[in-house]
């Protein structure tokens, strides 16, 4: 190992972070190289200087100020949260499952055959919407059929 390679590894050598084999190579080089031993002393001193450097405390109210900033941004950029985003994941899954089940039931109930026997149905007996009115059952259907027959007869 040459001087350049050794100096690149001095920091990790000091902290015992090098694999054993590499650390042994550095150690061997250091024994025979006063310049690199000087660099090792400098690296040690540097680590010690940084270790004792002062750091001011985190500004007071940092987290609460940040929460307000974040809430303001959410309101400004996105508008109020949509209702679904306020639900937790299990609730979202439950709502989604209910929607799927409801949709599936709707499809099943709506797709059943209206005339399962496949019999031909006279227009006059076909189910119509007149059951909702006060008219006698089938009267609207009969009126429609007779109107169509008359208009075809005219042609």
């Amino acid at each position: 190992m040459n001087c350049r390679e050794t100096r690149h590894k001095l920091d990790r050598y000091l902290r015992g972070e090098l694999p054993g084999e590499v650390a042994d190579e550095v150690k061997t080089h250091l024994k025979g190289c006063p310049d690199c031993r000087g660099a090792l002393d400098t690296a040690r001193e540097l680590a010690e200087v940084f270790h004792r450097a002062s750091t001011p405390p985190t500004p007071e109210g940092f987290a609460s100020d940040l929460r307000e900033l974040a809430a303001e941004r959410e309101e400004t950029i996105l508008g109020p949260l949509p209702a679904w985003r306020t639900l937790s994941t299990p609730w979202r899954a439950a709502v989604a499952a209910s929607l799927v089940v409801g949709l599936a039931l709707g499809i099943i109930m709506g797709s059943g055959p209206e005339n399962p026997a496949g019999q031909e149905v006279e227009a006059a007996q076909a189910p119509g919407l007149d059951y909702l009115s006060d008219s006698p059952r089938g009267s609207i259907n009969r009126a429609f059929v007779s109107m169509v027959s008359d208009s075809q007869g005219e042609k």
Partner: protein
Amino acid sequence: MQSDRELMMRVAEGRMEAFETLVRRHQERAWRIAYHYMGDHDDAEEVAQQAFLNILDAAESYNPSAKFTTYLYRVIANLCIDRTRKRSPHLSDDPPEQDSPTPAPDRRMADRERDRAIRNALDELTDRQRMATVLRYYEDLSYREIAATMDATPKAVERLLARARKALGGKLAEFAEK
């Protein structure tokens, strides 16, 4: 206690109390990195706050395979480097007063002189050398973690730090306690 990953999932659901828990848990390290890199109280506060806001904005795309702290370091490092590239040269803050116990006046003056020398020496490094130095010496990160933070290889980090040590050594070694 909820893990950072669980908290991030809740943040993605719009849970602000989870966001606040994350902030309280990591504010000190975010502040420390930003302060030692920027060398200015107000700039550091803005950077640290912006880092958390960026994390909030990107919460839904957070990749839990990455350790949260690595993700946080990366966001802060990018903001710090980006900001120093844009800002005009400035004078750094005076070093902070030491906390209790109150040291003797001579001691206090020596500490302030040392902190100012560190600040000036850091300001003379390149952006990436300075960030690698802050992460290594103030945060005690491994070369692998620094590499992940700075999108570099451990070998590149080794070179960055070796150059930084060479530049810093002559200026700061005298402040070591003999």
